[in-house]
Each structure stands twice: as C-alpha cells, then as structure tokens.
C-alpha cells in the first residue's frame, strides 16, 4: 500500500538545537513528496517539495530512495518553528498525508 509514516507524534527541542522530523514512505513508482506546516491558528500550507530542492525558512528535506525517507531538517531551531508538520505523498494526483509531528521549540 502507498503510505506515509511519521513515527513521532511530538518532538521537543530547545532553541538553537538541530531538528529532524522523520518521514518514511511506501510507493512503487517515483515518489513526489511534500512537507506541509500548520502554525497555531493558521491554515495548513505548503512548506517545501522535493522536486524544488529548495530551502524554506531554513528547512531542507532530501529524498533518500534507498531508505524511502524524506526527513525534514533544520540546523538551528527557532521558537517560531513550533507547529504541526505533515509529510505528504502524491498518489495518482491526490495528496496523501502522514499523521503529523508536533514540533515544540522551547526558549
């Protein structure tokens, strides 16, 4: 089955610490993967997508086909990064989301 797995429900770090939000996928073809973010009292919005190879707000994510992973990383967390993060997989023109990881960044 094609799915996305986010093993951590909650990740807590202190400001300035590195962050890695884990995402693993199961997909038989060439995957298209995304990270979406939802800040408190805001809409869910796209953070980044693997095909763009971009860095947004200091976050990067590399597709590792060997490990079937698309982990989201940031070298130095900021308090404003606290949010709910969802990994998503494009499956025949539909986005399938993982269960989400809540990131808490303490001052």
């Amino acid at each position, binding site marked *: 089955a094609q799915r996305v797995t986010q093993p951590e*429900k909650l990740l807590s770090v202190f400001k300035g610490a590195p962050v890695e939000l884990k995402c693993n996928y199961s997909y038989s073809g060439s995957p298209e993967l995304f990270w*979406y973010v939802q800040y408190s009292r805001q809409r869910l919005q796209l953070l980044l997508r693997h095909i763009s190879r971009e860095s947004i707000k200091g976050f990067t994510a590399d597709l590792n086909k060997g490990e079937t992973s698309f982990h989201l990383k940031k070298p130095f967390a900021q308090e404003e990064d606290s949010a709910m993060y969802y990994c998503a997989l494009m499956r025949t*023109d539909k986005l399938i*989301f993982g269960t*989400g990881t809540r990131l808490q960044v303490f001052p």
Partner: protein
Amino acid sequence: DVKVTQSSRYLVKRTGEKVFLECVQDMDHENMFWYRQDPGLGLRLIYFSYDVKMKEKGDIPEGYSVSREKKERFSLILESASTNQTSMYLCASGSQGQGRFEKLFFGSGTQLSVL
C-alpha cells in the same frame, strides 16, 4: 492571494441530522478536496473532484457524499450525522500543471461537533 473559504468555522449538529459543509475557492482551480483532520490520525481524504459534476472517493468516503455543481464550489454532505464524524474538516483546492497540481491551498477548516 488564493482564497479557499469554508462557510462555517464551528458547527454543532445532532445525531441523524443532514449536514452541509460548503467550500468556495476563487482561483479557478480544477481540483478540490475534502479532508478530515483528527489528532493522531493526520489528514484523511474523504472525497475529491477534478471537474464540475465529477467526484471520486477518497480513503474514507463512508457516510459522506459531495456535490460540485459549479467549478468554484465543493460541498461535503453528511447524510445522517453520527458522533464518530465529529472532526475538523478541511477543504483544499489546487490547479493542474503538466498533469499534476503544484500545491494545495487549504481553507481554515470547519470544526464539526455531532452530539
């Protein structure tokens, strides 16, 4: 700026009621989606539509139906609401480019409570 508007932010209904959740987008997007968002379960796709009068079942369509009479409007219908349909409902839209859409734009959500 793309706007996806959901008609109600909070809704309280009784078991057995017929419930309509409305969603309107203003960017002429072909694709529209309904998800429900539950803690620990993430976002699960209920129904989606690629065009007017067209609908496709998502992963959890049971107990729901949809209507898309106009391109900008996508309605989710709970034929007979049940307590296990208490949830946050998110509408999203996206345009198609090179055969697949670039990103989804989400509404602010409707928190539905079924008593």
